[in-house]
């Protein structure tokens, strides 16, 4: 095992897959000469050349659609959005083209494309640059979506996404790029679609989460331990396909659930998980499911307000207390 950062793990996944398959190429703003807005693609231009590491104009709709067209005729594009905030300009091609071409063509055309980049808030970037956009993407059948929380998962999820024959959205975390962790050197490290992971086993309460919030949940769990509350943290990793069995298994185990996500509450991931639980495991619940989300407002700039808007360790702890009636 090597210790590396989340960004290095992503870069390694890209490099390995580009070596393995000549049809894989990376395209996006600043991915080449600049080495990536977040340095994920550092060194790749030198290694693979301009045809496979492509700097684009600022033209999100254009290059997203270009990727889909190339995927339809057999290439495997990795399209980097500098952040998912900017992908909003490209959504027609993601939702109306990538997600639908297999179905509309009666299965004749597949679309093996990856759309990746950071989602969610960093620090004080305010309303337009701080959005966690999982929910809108998850609304569309035809897309898959995963959210790595650790360097190892970053590598395994991105590699699985690149090899997948469907369009996969890989939502990374801006604040995670510098995170260090152990990453297996295995070139076949793949986290296949629909596989969640228990990041911390526990027996009193389940925190179901994904992406950057896994770390908030783990910190909350560590503090809860001091109160002798044993929290389980389930990292969904893939939000579509969803590891329904893992989500239900943790409910069966603890009978109490807190859903934590970075995005807004309305039609959020937690709303979906709560529905799933009440449909499939109602009788196992000892308390109503509680959700911790971003405040239902655009992200404010001011430090204190931003802090209030974001899901925090304190709010996760409070939610756990609530489902435990403590």
């Amino acid at each position: 095992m090597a210790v590396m950062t989340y960004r290095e793990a992503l870069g390694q996944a890209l490099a390995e897959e580009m070596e393995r398959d000549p049809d894989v190429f990376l395209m996006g703003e600043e991915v080449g000469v600049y080495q990536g807005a977040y340095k994920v693609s550092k060194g790749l231009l030198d290694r693979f050349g301009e045809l496979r590491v492509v700097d684009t104009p600022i033209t999100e709709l254009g290059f997203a659609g270009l990727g889909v067209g190339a995927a339809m005729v057999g290439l495997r594009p990795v399209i980097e959005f500098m952040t998912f905030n900017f992908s909003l300009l490209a959504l027609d091609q993601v939702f109306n083209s990538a997600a639908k071409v297999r179905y509309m063509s009666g299965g004749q055309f597949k679309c093996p494309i990856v759309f990746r980049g950071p989602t969610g808030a960093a620090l004080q970037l305010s309303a337009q640059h701080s959005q966690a956009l999982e929910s809108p993407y998850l609304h569309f059948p035809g897309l898959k979506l995963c959210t790595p929380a650790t360097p190892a998962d970053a590598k395994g999820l991105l590699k699985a996404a690149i090899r997948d024959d469907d369009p996969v959205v890989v939502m990374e975390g801006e604040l995670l790029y510098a995170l260090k962790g152990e990453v297996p050197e295995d070139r076949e490290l793949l986290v296949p679609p629909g596989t969640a992971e228990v990041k911390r086993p526990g027996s009193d309460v389940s925190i179901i989460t994904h992406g950057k919030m896994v770390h908030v949940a783990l910190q909350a769990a560590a503090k809860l331990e001091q109160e002798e509350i044993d929290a389980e943290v389930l990292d969904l990793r893939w939000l579509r396909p969803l590891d329904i069995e893992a989500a239900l298994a943790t409910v069966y185990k603890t009978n109490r659930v807190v859903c934590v996500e970075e995005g807004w509450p309305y039609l959020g991931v937690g709303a979906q998980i709560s529905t799933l639980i009440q449909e499939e495991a109602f009788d196992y619940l000892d308390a109503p499911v509680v959700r911790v989300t971003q405040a239902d407002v655009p992200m404010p700039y001011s430090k204190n307000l931003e802090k209030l808007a974001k899901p925090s360790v304190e709010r996760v702890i409070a939610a756990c207390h609530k489902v435990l009636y403590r």
Partner: protein
Amino acid sequence: MPDGRAANAKATSRAPRVEEPRRDSQRLGGLDKEKLHELLSQMLLGRRFEEKSAESYALGKIGGFCHLYIGQEAVAVGAMSVLRPDDYVITAYREHVQALIKGLTPREVMAELYGRVDGCSKGKGGSMHLFSAEKNFLGGWGIVAGQIPLGTGVGWAIKYRDEDRVCLCFFGEAAVNQGAFHESLNMAALWKLPVIFLVENNRFGMGTAWERASSLYDIAQKAAAYDMPSAVADGMDVFAMRAAVLEAVDRAREQRTPTLIEARCYRFMGHSMSDPVHGVYRTKEEVEEAKQKDPIRIFIDQLREQDLLDEDELNELDARARAAVEDAAEFAEKSPEPGPEELYRDVYAQEDVRGWLYFDRKDRLE
């Protein structure tokens, strides 16, 4: 099902040009009688197919939106006559005729319009979403201008693989005002992609005349913004279309340079089957006057002038087109509807083995 890649593998070799149009730009494009009759057959098939579609639509056999190509046949027939089978075509929702010319059978196209399982897209796409991986026909797209970035990506893939194919990308003049058009032309010119951007300027985007929608009248001029070659062609004349597209295809194949071509044509029918033929945005007289320039009649006259078509031959070709269309409609009528098992198929590569993909829990429905 052949995926894009398998289809590619067969055809990537630098196949010889199927037929070499003469460059001396002789009358009738230097084509022999057989080829000319083939083009006339395509035009007639297109026309008869659309007439039958209108009839079936009126009978409720075809549903949804259905956009007819009547009046614009010379654009597709002329343009596509210079392509090789391994070249790609992508277009919008007014695409029945392009699909037929690319080699989809009238049966599979009509069955698709009828929403039947023998349709080219198994009845899941309908009139607006015809596809054939085998014939390099890439759809069939319903969002105005949505196919332009896709066609650009196909051009990218051709360049990436160092092939000598081209992608012919059709769209209506109304699509020119979308960002997707401008973003695509910029990338295609910047990266030298072998794409021919063919604007079918039929004067209207639904009820909005071109001059009411664009500050610049000459669409071809927009290419200048991207330092891209351009041309204007008479879209009612097969030979004019052929000549313009041939030049662009040569340039794309040999120099990987894209071209923007404006084909000036006219839509004889309403925007879609739910729109009356003239409506409130144009007069009956305007439509009647345009019909005087019926592209099929013009083509027939051109052939007759050179003694390359007599009455019997014309009747014979038309009878064949009508028969093919009748056969297609009968076939579509008899083709079964897609079974319920098709509902959840083709959304993803995998079947939903563990009920993880669909959030209405498919297992409940069964």
